């Protein structure tokens, strides 16, 4: 059984800015635990000669040429923004007064 705790889930939710109810935290604690257990199973059969992988496709070096393509217009770029000021995105104050 994994050692995922409700505290860890709450901490993670906080870091990810996800507002979870205590019922959701309980459910996710169990589900995340099962995922960690499953990954641990894979780790059991993966011997040291099997390198860690981050991508299912056996591909490397997929590059594009350094050529400019048209960007969005300013209005397109700002169209989904909750607020704007001129051509810039407007966001709430970031830090409180110290």
């Amino acid at each position, binding site marked *: 059984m994994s050692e995922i705790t409700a505290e860890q889930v709450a*901490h*993670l939710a*906080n*870091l*990810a*800015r996800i507002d979870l109810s205590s019922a959701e935290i309980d459910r996710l604690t169990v589900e995340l635990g099962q995922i960690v257990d499953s990954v641990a199973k894979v780790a059991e059969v993966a011997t040291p000669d099997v390198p860690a992988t*981050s*991508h299912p*496709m056996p*591909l*490397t*070096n*997929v*590059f*594009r*040429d*350094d*050529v*400019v*393509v048209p*960007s*969005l217009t*300013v209005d397109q*770029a*700002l169209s*989904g923004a909750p607020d704007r*000021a*001129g*051509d*810039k*995105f*407007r*966001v*709430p*104050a*970031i*830090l409180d*007064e*110290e």
Partner: protein
Amino acid sequence: MAKAELMDYDKALELFEPVLGFEVHVELNTKTKMFCGCANEFGSGANTNTCPTCLGLPGGLPQVNRQAIESSIRLGLALGCEIAETSRFARKNYFYPDTAKNFQTSQYDEPIAFNGQLTIELESGRQVTVDIERAHMEDDAGKLTHMGGAAGRIQGADYSLVDYNRGGVPLVEIVTQMIEGAEADAPEIGKTYVAAIREIVKALGVSNARMEEGNVRCDANVSLRPRGSNILGTRTETKNVNSLRSVERAVRYEIQRQAALLTAGGTITQETRHWHEDTGVTSAGRPKSDADDYRYFPEPDLVPVAPSRAWVEELRATLPEPPAARRKRLQADWGFVNLEFQDVVNSDLLDVMEATIAAGAPAQAARKWWTGEIARLANAAGVTAESLVTPAQVAALIALITDGTLTDRLARQVLEGVIAGEGTPSEVVASRGLAVVSDDGPLIAAIDEALASQPDVLAKIRDGKVQAAGAVIGAVMKAMRGQADAARVRELVLERAGSAPVEQAPAEPAE
């Protein structure tokens, strides 16, 4: 903000050993961003260079810029690094409006370059080898402008504005190992190290390397270890140190601030500090905390970068001569003493000097013009010297002085004409009629006239009072509107005085 107590610098060094570390971010000068085809340019209208990928909109997919990879590998090689056989990108997750993606695409456990070394030389001649831990690739953040509150600072701002043009621009972050044994040289080591990085990326041509435009940015880590202790002190990371002088000042300031705090029984908080260029102080930013749990994970939308050894060697073959070695070679070639050479280096004139000398100008003459008159004009106009004239034009100007066509004074007028866009130095000489009058005819006429109108002077010269000739030379130069070689005028004055009739005015012009 309360002003921090500072300990006298020498006293601080007596009690503590400073330990340094630097993170230098270099913005690459690729045409496009790291992961999308938006233009990478400074100074465009706000949010004109954005797309779904760099704005983190649904459906955006990153694609790696080959040129950025090549530049990163070349930079890694120039820093003496090993280049990874496989390297990959990772997401560094954080919430801050400078990125719309809510993560920075960076590298974590598999940087493109690692284990390098850079040897720098201080003004005293002391050599310091800085070990480079890694140089990894990442994308830059957007630019925030804080509105309201005190003078554009983040503290107390009412709201902030974001321009994402810079978001997604390719960066290489160069991270040093801990630098110990810096001692009192710590501030100079910081400045010299960042200067060396700047010089290298410029020589490689991978960055515009303009610190004032943020192409090269430094975070300075400083901690103090009490003398006789082997336990490292808590470090602070000062951000936003964006000029060479600031690096030096910020390191010195942190040493003095931390020393005062520790001696008074306080503790150093591990935190990010902001450098304030205007007041020369650092102020506390956010403390390191849970917020620094970045939950890195491999970027699922990008495949690994696995540069073949052949590719790496091909790129290694494109490396320029290391700047430090080049400086040594040029100083020896030019025969400059340290002061003369430093003058050229500090004015950022090495390239134009080299080109001017290659175009045939003697080294000392090239130095005199570039660091003298041209630098003065550039300074007055608030532009760089090399934006005013080309090395070829300067070499041509110097050639005209050497062959006697121009005096230094006339050459300055020709230079003005060249800068004003009137053509090559020869063309300006012709169009402004500035050549030294080398045909003796008009000169002799002017001299005879001057001698005849000053018979007392003539008498003195004939009596052997050669210094009296000055008055005549002055009159002649005036009559010639300066377009005469003073040495030749003096020669001719003495010659004519010897044969001129005395007290017989007006004199007949010589035949």
